[in-house]
């Protein structure tokens, strides 16, 4: 492998683009901890970070700064005089020094964890709101496939020309290790188009959304098949659920 190729492989790795068999090769080199692999990885990470400067400028709202500082337990500066600040600090020290030393440390750690969890929860809430907005959109249509018989796979497919396809499935079969479900958009002409892979929960239920462009006039059906982990470019097993558009 030439040096240029090695640079490229580490850059592809840093971007999350490297595929087998080179992925395993580079991961083995990185795990070995050799100075050269560490140097190449750091250089790739540095170039990766530099790509962020290609983003168009977007101004964050001023409230975001306050929000982040408050979430981290860091208050914004105020216009207090030094005397006021000194008095408050002294009072706080006197009141808290004996009683709350150890307890405060413990609580601070707990609070940091809770704040981080809150940030993650807010992100999850945003995702749920996105899904709800999709379902509420007047352009979204519901389609069904499968039978209502107990334990038979059943799917509800919501399609929206502007926002893609949302699949809600139940009674999905339990999969062997290394297998996933893959959704397909079946055009009226041509082969099925991959629309993402997903797994079901323990009860066989799954929620999966594809935001790829969706043209109802050119699409005949939405189908589900079982595929190897990572998905397939074309179905390798017979689709077991087909929802006509």
């Amino acid at each position, binding site marked *: 492998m030439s040096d240029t190729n090695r*640079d*490229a492989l580490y850059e*592809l790795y*840093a*971007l*999350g*683009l*490297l*595929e087998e068999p080179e*992925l395993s090769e580079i991961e083995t080199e990185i795990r070995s901890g050799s100075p050269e692999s560490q*140097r190449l*990885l*750091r*250089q790739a*990470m*540095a*170039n*990766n*970070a*530099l*790509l*962020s*400067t*290609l*983003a*168009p*400028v*977007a*101004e*964050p*709202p001023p409230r*975001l*700064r306050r*929000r*982040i*500082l408050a*979430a*981290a337990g*860091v*208050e914004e500066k105020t216009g207090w005089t030094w005397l006021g600040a000194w008095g408050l600090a002294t009072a706080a020290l006197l009141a808290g020094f004996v009683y709350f030393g150890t307890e405060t440390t413990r609580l601070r750690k707990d609070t*940091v964890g809770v*704040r*981080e969890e809150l*940030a993650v929860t807010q*992100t999850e809430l*945003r*995702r749920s709101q*996105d899904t709800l907005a999709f379902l509420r959109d007047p352009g979204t249509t519901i389609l069904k496939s499968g039978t209502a018989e107990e334990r038979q796979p059943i799917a509800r497919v919501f399609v929206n020309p502007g926002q893609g396809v949302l699949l809600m499935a139940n009674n999905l079969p339990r999969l062997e290790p290394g297998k996933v479900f893959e959704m397909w958009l079946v055009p009226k002409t041509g082969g099925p188009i991959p629309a*993402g*892979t*997903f797994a079901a929960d323990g009860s066989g239920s799954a*929620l*999966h*959304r*594809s935001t*790829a462009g969706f043209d109802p006039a050119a699409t005949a059906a939405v189908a589900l098949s079982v595929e190897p*982990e*990572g*998905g397939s*470019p074309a179905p390798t097993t017979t689709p077991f659920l087909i929802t006509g558009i």
Partner: protein
Amino acid sequence: MFFFPILFAALDSESDRALAARLKAREPEALRELYDKYGRLAYSVIFRVVRNAAAAEDLTQETFLRVWNRMAGFDAERGSIGPWVLTVARNRAIDYLRSVDGRMSQNAIELTGAESPALFVDMESVILNSQRAKLLKAAFHKLSEQQRTVIELAYFEGLSQTEMADRLSQPLGTVKTWVRTALRLLREELEEPVTV
């Protein structure tokens, strides 16, 4: 698509090292400075990825809390805080996008692992400054349209090469060639001597 380079404040490694040391010491003022220095850039990257202001705010908050809470593992002497913040920001945004799309690439490396603070040490001292940003922008505009597209799809949408081939209706081999050529050309331009 037309890009504007982010105008950096002076991002010299000396002041970043001092800032990192103060962040490790949990100085509240240091977090304010970190946000003032990298908040707009982090938000810009996230907004470019998710294209949703409310989600971008949530993810920017998550980014800075993650950095603030993981400073204990950061080497203030040898580390580069800016690239770390931007990597965390990009990874949070791509994770969000993949989650919303229900899209998890088998070949995508685990993003959380790719933002370990240990990866951001001993980087060259001029990684992020306005001159290198200009150099990158110029190099980026020298690329062909297809090469620019695949770099954008990889960096700002987190697509694998297979997913790019699907999106662009091109053979996988063609996409791989575009990606590798683009990376090589960018690398060659960035390896040009830089005067700071």
